[in-house]
């Protein structure tokens, strides 16, 4: 288990937030030379779900994967080194931000073609069952992925075989600049599509880490018991632009007012407030955590920046196993 106490949940949220904000700060240095899709604003889904999983469970994700990778226990140094294109990166510089992996942590992989890792997660669950292994596989994707054919095909197959899969949809209302209502008809929820396929499904607040964690734990137990896959739709919001470090609330596809409404629902500060109100941590302990995390991040950045690039000709290695 990655985290079980309220403080641990909060610390994970804070860590992800601080990592992503540091990436945003460093990005203009132009040494991270690959696209980054930051998770700022969506951290509670990653932490809530991953904390409900066992260390031996598996996670797959898409382009907006940093939070999932870190929440599952992925190595921070190897993640940053990968974003810097270094040979010490988790994919040895071959993949960059959009193709992270950490097998030790059970984060199998992320790829950026929307929806593509959904059936792969289903296959991993099938594989675990065939070998008699007790595993839940969680796959993270956005509202846009729910429009793909492969999404529906995967749900159908997982329901048919009663596979232990958690389909986790982060509905952040946008696919790049396209709002939900130009892509999907109103008057229905995404979770109802999953119900139509025969899955247990729910829709709820993705910015409340306690809620996410509770329903994820129930879902994981349901799946693990062989009762079938579960679909979790979590409503949340992406703070920064689709790809890159900046804010883009002024360019016209959404409004600063909408952003501010969602910023008030910040999953990190919500969790912090709750911690203090419930006296589950002191201000000092929180500040100390932030300071530890800051040091951890700086060490990881140092590691990434000072690591070597892959050697000349290295691009040709590893086409075939």
């Amino acid at each position, binding site marked *: 288990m990655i985290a079980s106490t309220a403080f641990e949940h909060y610390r994970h949220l804070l860590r992800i937030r601080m990592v992503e904000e540091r990436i945003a700060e460093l990005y203009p240095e132009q040494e991270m030379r690959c696209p980054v899709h930051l998770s700022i604003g969506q951290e509670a889904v990653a932490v809530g779900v991953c904390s409900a999983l066992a260390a031996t469970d598996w996670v797959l994700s898409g382009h907006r994967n940093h939070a999932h990778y870190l929440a599952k226990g992925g190595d921070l140094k190897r993640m940053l080194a990968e974003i810097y294109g270094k040979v010490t990166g988790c994919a040895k510089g071959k993949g960059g931000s959009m193709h992270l992996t950490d097998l030790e942590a059970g984060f199998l992989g992320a790829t950026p073609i929307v929806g593509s890792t959904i*059936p792969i997660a289903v296959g991993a669950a099938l594989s675990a069952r065939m070998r008699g292994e007790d595993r839940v596989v969680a796959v993270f994707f956005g509202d846009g992925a729910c429009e793909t*054919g492969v999404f529906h095909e995967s749900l159908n197959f997982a329901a048919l075989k009663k596979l232990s899969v958690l389909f986790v949809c982060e509905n952040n209302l946008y696919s790049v600049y396209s709002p939900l209502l130009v892509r999907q008809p109103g008057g229905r929820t995404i979770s109802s599509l999953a119900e139509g396929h025969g899955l247990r499904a729910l829709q709820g607040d993705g910015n409340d880490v306690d809620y996410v964690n509770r329903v994820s734990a129930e879902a994981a137990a349901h799946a693990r018991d062989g009762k079938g896959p579960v679909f979790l739709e979590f409503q949340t919001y992406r703070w920064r632009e689709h790809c890159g470090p900046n804010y883009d609330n002024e360019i016209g596809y959404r409004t600063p007012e909408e952003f501010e409404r969602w910023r008030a629902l910040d999953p990190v500060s919500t969790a912090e407030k709750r911690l203090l109100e419930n006296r589950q941590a002191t201000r000092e302990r929180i500040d100390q955590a932030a300071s530890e995390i800051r040091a951890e991040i700086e060490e990881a950045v140092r590691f990434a920046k000072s690591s070597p690039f892959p050697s000349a000709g290295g691009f040709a290695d590893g086409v075939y196993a």
Partner: protein
Amino acid sequence: MSREISFAEALREAQDLCLSKYPEVFLMGLGVPDPKGIFGTTIDLQKKHGEHRVFDIPLSENAITGVALGAAITGMRPILTHQRVDFAVISMEQIVNQAAKWHYMFGGAMSAPMVIRMIIGRGWGQGPQHSQSLQAWFAHVPGLKVVMPTTARDAKGLLIASVEDNNPVVFLEHRWLYSIRDDVPPDYYTVPLGTAKVLREGADVTVVGISYMTLEALRAADSLAAQGISVEVIDLRTIQPWDTETVLHSVRKTGRLVVADTGWQSFGVAAEIEATTVENLFQSMKAPPRRVGLPDCPSPTSPALAAEFFPRSDRISSAVCELLGRRRAESPSRMDYEKLDVPDNTFKGPF
């Protein structure tokens, strides 16, 4: 001890042996357990190995390919079947973007040992969307291997080798080969990927055949022999990686090359083989190379159109004669085909 079985039976045997030998192997595809058993290649395998290892799938080619990949990267060795390569087109995203690159793009952390069997073919009005031959597409994508056996003996050994290979292998079977019999050892054996085979030695020209066109090449060689032309026929067997050494060695000897492919002529496998050969042997070649493939248009359905569209041995013979500056004679052994949209039943093994 000699034992003849058909190409289809040989494939069935290969899968049966793999399912018995490797608990990681499983077989899935549309209609795999049905009474027809994928042209006879999967008959009774579900009965023998159980429905957890041999099973039918929903009509979801794209997702099921992703499912196969997810299983492969976590320790299984799936065999997925498509009854036509045209159906596999639906799953190109999973094949090209995901499976082919999974080992590379994660820095070697995982491998994707999976075999996708796809059926190519022609005849009986299969038409534009049921008779394509897309090996060039797959061969063009780094990370995939592409195998196309011609003989039953090779089919069994190459399929087993493909299952044992740690990479995604596209295994293309021509349906006109299924009933052709061959001497096939009953036990477990492999034929290494990436090795071509000289089926017939010759001095005047090298004809490289791919899949069914290898049989037409042998027919052409017979017919040309009557004219005193000596043809060396090579069965390519694996498209990617292909056996450059065997082909170049042959063309070094003969100085002339014809490649007979089952796919469209332009931008195809024959072009690749010719380019590599000319790049290496330009100075010593006696004539430019020639391709025999499908004309660059979709496969027509009417038998009258198909008869003209699909190349047979006579087109290979013509190409050879062109290279030698000879006229193609009507060989006394040449058969007159009444109906060209069914397999030529004079093609019998063993080869």
